[in-house]
């Protein structure tokens, strides 16, 4: 799925990277509010769904090598977050859905989890 299709699916506003949305194809998705989790488990090329709206999000995704961010559930995304996403060229989407809904919709469209399985 391209980021453009994902933006449509999640009813998301594009805050950064609009010109690249058609070219970015997403295969793997991870959802986390803990940036340490993202650092630990994020793999290059994944899309992050998060409830966090701070500049930490684009910065972490950039360091891990993710291809984009969907911020869910938050009424606003901080201006500083958008600015940093622009500098780091991390596509940034803002969806009104809850984390559960957003993840459910993405999963239903066949997107895959990142490759971490831990023993429960």
């Amino acid at each position: 799925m391209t980021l453009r299709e994902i933006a449509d699916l999640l009813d998301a506003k594009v805050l950064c990277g609009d010109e690249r949305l058609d070219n970015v194809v997403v295969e793997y998705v991870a959802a986390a509010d803990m940036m340490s989790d993202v650092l630990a488990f994020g793999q290059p090329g994944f899309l992050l769904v998060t409830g966090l709206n701070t500049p930490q999000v684009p910065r972490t995704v950039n360091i891990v090598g993710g291809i984009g961010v969907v911020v869910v559930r938050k009424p606003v995304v901080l201006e500083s977050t958008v600015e940093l996403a622009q500098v780091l060229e991390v596509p940034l989407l803002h969806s009104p859905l809850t984390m559960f809904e957003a993840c459910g919709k993405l999963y239903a469209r066949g997107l895959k989890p990142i490759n971490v399985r831990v023993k429960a």
Partner: protein
Amino acid sequence: MSESRLETLEGMKLSNVFLDSLMQIMNHLKIEEVMSKNVHVLTPEKSMWHAKELMRLKKVSGIPIVNREGKLVGIVSIEDIILALEGNYINEPIEKHMTRNVVCLKPSDNLKKAVECFERYGYGRFPVTDEKGRVVGIVAKEDVLKGLLQWFSTVYTHDERRSDVLESEYFYKSLLTGEPLDKRGADFVMEIGYTDINMAGVVAARLKEFLISKGMDEKLVRRITIATYEAEANVVIHSGSNGVVYCFLGQDAIRVRVEDYGKGIENVDLAMREGFSTAPDHIRELGFGAGMGLPNMKRFSDKMVIVSEGGKGVVVEMLFYRDET
């Protein structure tokens, strides 16, 4: 040896240390961090009189001249204006009298390069252009001075804070090899000089740029930056002080050392445990404090040693083998 002679020698030693650290700062501070981004430009068909007026109103001493695409084509300095007034051609177009072949700097150049340019060419200012030749800033001597002063003010505050913990011997030797460590030999040094958690990661991001500029393998760079990011976040969240990140590029391995001068870790074993965290709630709300910091650093490095005592700062050293990625 007379007393005054001795003083001079001491003074020289001190100034050498000072010069060394000055050189290091100049190597690491980038032009984009000190340049004025608010640049006043004119197009070549305007008159020299326009340039004079703009200089007077904006109190600047040089005006980059750009074409319609914003590309730099020349520069007019106050000296050119004086000549124009003397030669009575102040109403002629800039195009006829501007200096072409302008020496410019890139945003990614370091301060050392700027100082070399000031010395070599004797100009008072240099336009800063992006890869397409468009003007994105301008650097005058004052900007360099201001950038350095700003840097020193942060170094000074951390020097004050670290005085309590400087006696600890582990600040002076490698944790991994036990050898004495010459930190001035580091290939990358950057201060964690802020306390705002929202800035956590800026040093790691800069280190990433630096490592990539050295042509290093992408996966290796990723491991190093993630681990450094975690260490940096720890300094900001827990130390209550400032810190420094050093990176040494070895033949077989990259070594990253992160030091802080803060309150230290009471129980290192406990802190190493996954999920254990002492971070307060407001930090957790920002996505940190999952208790993954130290475990992540261990996971992404090939060797890691951490030394700390309550009240005595923390030193972390991590080794990343070049061929293990």
